[in-house]
């Protein structure tokens, strides 16, 4: 077999949805053993294209050639037959089943009328060893980490004989270490002769991994890069967004004022009686951003719940501008000057079936401004919403649009607009750019720094080290419900940070 053999060729693929052309005569070519990145912002049409290749959509125009033969991919089963596998962003696994059961699901080896579990386990073990994907076939999905679950998804495609594997935003749900491991796995697959397509909007991964890149913007291919020596992050970002992008967040030296938030010895007991917060102590002053680094699940969410009053704390105090807010209700805390950009904007930040204008007053609707005597003043609501939408450039077809219809970036803009409109003294931002594309990330970062410059205290929790270093004035590290130390936010030292994040650093503060 020739290494330069083309395994997938898409010619002039066009897919229209009501009111939008998702793919506009796209050409795409994947060579054998290649790792080809499909790069583009959210909504650019990457996923649509791959869903066409995987048989989930039918193109309106264009041709699909697999291994040199023109084909119609009528459904996922046809795609699998052709040796195409897809690892979806949201895993499709049966939680109470074991790893092996999930992998063989639908193609179980049979022994008489029953499933031959021994053979299934052995086969899974074989494949996992062949490709260096270590998993225990006999554990249940619900007991393994997200990273492991993803390996199971990859094994599923390999078990079905996939030679072409599509990864849809594979790193979105992974931790830093898991991402490293995944990149290794993908490289390994390519080395074994598998051809890989990876859908992503993360430039770092593209640079680290890809042999070729196709950049899509608004349904059209804007560039195909075959030689990665020609590519730089800046250049790709520019192609993706359609204008120059600066990765540097413009930021002056901070000028901290009085202490706004003072957390002392905050403890919280978890469900099993274990302390999920174990004596958190820190302060944030007006006009500074405190970043909190740490591996997910070390009490970050609980810290936020504790400060905002959504869960009971069991010891310690939270003081805002000198007033004790430890045991107030969430509304009282919010009213005393706390804004909150929650981690999960769909679950906590918005009511998706409410209009934009209804969402804009979610935390302030009880205010007299929005109507007296228990009635809502729609004029006032709409006026506020219109102002915020304009100021924060929330793009939608109008303020009566349901929040559900907005893109992730615009939803996040709406939340930030709402929270800043409350004019809080303390702004809590948890993973404020999760799942956003470059343009939106740039916007969010700019707004956060602006808020800080206006003298707000900002508590930033993020799992993206780049983001923490770009924004924070100070970075504290959290491990098992307490702070294990503080690092210099101006001189990046990942090694030291890594030690603190795993609890092996020296204890300070």
């Amino acid at each position: 077999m020739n290494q330069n053999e083309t395994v997938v060729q898409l010619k002039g693929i066009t897919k229209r949805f009501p009111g939008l052309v998702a793919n506009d005569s796209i050409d795409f070519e994947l060579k054998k053993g290649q790792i080809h990145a499909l790069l583009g912002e959210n909504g650019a049409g990457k996923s649509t294209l791959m869903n066409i290749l995987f048989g989930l959509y039918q193109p309106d125009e264009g041709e699909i050639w697999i291994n040199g033969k023109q084909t119609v991919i009528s459904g996922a089963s046809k795609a699998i037959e052709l040796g195409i596998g897809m690892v979806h962003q949201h895993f499709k696994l049966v939680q109470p089943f074991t790893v092996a059961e999930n992998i063989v699901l639908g193609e179980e080896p049979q022994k008489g009328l029953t499933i031959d579990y021994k053979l299934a386990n052995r086969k899974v073990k074989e494949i996992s060893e062949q490709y260096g994907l270590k998993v225990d076939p006999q554990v249940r999905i619900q007991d393994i980490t997200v990273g492991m679950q993803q390996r199971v998804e990859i094994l599923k495609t390999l078990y079905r004989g996939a030679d072409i594997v599509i990864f849809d935003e594979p790193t979105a749900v992974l931790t830093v270490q898991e991402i490293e491991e995944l990149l290794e796995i993908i490289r390994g697959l390519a080395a074994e002769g598998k051809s890989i397509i990876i859908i992503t909007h993360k430039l770092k991964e593209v640079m680290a991994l890809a042999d070729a890149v196709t950049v899509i913007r608004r349904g059209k291919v804007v560039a195909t890069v075959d030689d990665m020596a020609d590519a730089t992050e800046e250049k790709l970002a520019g192609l993706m967004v359609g204008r120059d992008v600066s990765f540097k967040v413009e930021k002056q030296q901070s000028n901290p004022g009085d202490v706004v938030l003072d957390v002392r010895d905050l403890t919280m007991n978890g469900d099993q009686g274990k302390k999920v917060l174990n004596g958190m102590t820190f302060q944030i002053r007006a006009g500074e951003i405190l970043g909190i680094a740490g591996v997910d699940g070390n009490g970050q969410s609980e810290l936020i719940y504790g400060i905002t009053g959504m869960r009971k704390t069991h010891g310690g105090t939270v003081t805002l501008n000198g007033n004790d807010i430890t045991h107030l209700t969430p509304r009282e805390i919010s009213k005393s000057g706390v804004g909150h950009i929650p981690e999960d904007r769909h679950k906590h930040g918005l009511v998706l079936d409410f209009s934009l204008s209804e969402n804009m007053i979610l935390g302030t609707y009880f205010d007299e401004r929005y109507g007296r005597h228990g009635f809502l003043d729609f004029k006032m609501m709409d006026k506020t919403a219109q102002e915020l939408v304009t100021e924060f450039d929330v793009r939608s077809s109008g303020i009566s649009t349901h929040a559900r219809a907005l893109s992730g970036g615009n939803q996040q803009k709406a939340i930030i607009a709402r929270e800043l409109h409350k004019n809080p003294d303390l702004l809590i931002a948890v993973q404020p750019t999760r799942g956003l594309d470059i343009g939106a990330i740039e916007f969010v970062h700019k707004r956060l720094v602006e808020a800080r410059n206006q003298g707000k205290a900002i508590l930033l929790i993020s799992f993206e080290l780049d983001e923490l270093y770009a924004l924070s004035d100070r970075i504290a590290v959290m491990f098992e419900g307490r702070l294990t130390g503080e690092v210099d936010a101006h001189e990046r030292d990942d090694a030291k940070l890594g030690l603190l994040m795993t609890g092996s650093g020296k204890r300070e503060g």
Partner: protein
Amino acid sequence: MEMIKKIFNKSSLLVPLVSILLGLLVGALAMLAGGYDPLLAYGSLFKRVFGSSYHMGETIRAITPLIFTGLAVAFAFRTGLFNIGVEGQFIMGMTGATLIGVLLDLPWYLHGPLAILTGALFGGLWAGLVGYLKAKRGVNEVISSIMLNWTALYLANYIVTKFLLEPGQQKSRNVHESALMSIDWLVQLMDKARMHWGTFVALACVLVFYILLWRTKQGYELRAVGHNPDAALYAGMNVNRTIVKSMFISGVFAGLGGVFEILGVFGNQTVLAASVGYGFDGIAVALLGGNTPIGVLLGAVLFGGLSYGSNGMSFGAGVPSEIVRIVIGSVIFFVAAHGIVKFILKPLKLKRSDKSKEAA
């Protein structure tokens, strides 16, 4: 005018309409299979409903409780709660009204209103209990409200037999004249059909339902909790209290339905052998009406009309009136499985777009 256009343009209206047609079709097939003439049957059904002023009045009488129970189900649903207990709350409403109506003797301007309020309160508290159990103890409202249906049934029967029984009969003593809610001149006008103020209260409740949910801050809270309790909590709303409130209001609607059955229609309460069924029909009405106030009103008109007209069907065409339950059941089925309706509509839509393409 724009408003009306908007409402009728929506596909949300198309699905129920097609479902009704399909439901009637299924009913017709069932009749054909049984050797009956569906056209004659449906003809006599409509004749019964519109045939005379008495029957028209009685149809309205049959529709009224369905408006109340439909609103009750829809209201809870808007807050994300499935109130299966409307039946029990309806019965509690009946019982509250009967208690006041029979035991007290007050001037009319006090007696009627007090009986109505008590019945509404009984219904509200009965549902509020479900809300409380859910909010404070995490008990699923479907389970507790179903169980409370039976509790309500036997509690009502106990109260009637123990305190209110008309000697020698399986029903309560009659409610005092001063508490009755019938509209005498309208009764005369409609040829002795049992017309009562409850119908107007029901229509007022349709309006209250709308204003409360979409015009007030309370309603904003209720809807926010219904759509996304997590976000409501983040916004500082007291989700548990909202759940109790919503159930209470839902129960008040249901209770009012029961109240007017006693004060407006029967004048006494029988010892019930089984549930009255209005609560369960309310679920269907709410579903058909898409949980909107106007939708509930239209749904109640349809269901009430069909049920009442079904007697005419057996009278005029010899078709057992249970056939109408098949029609109603199929309509619910098609509304619930609207995918099927859309599937049936698809070829029609395609043809239309083909034509417009050709035109272009």
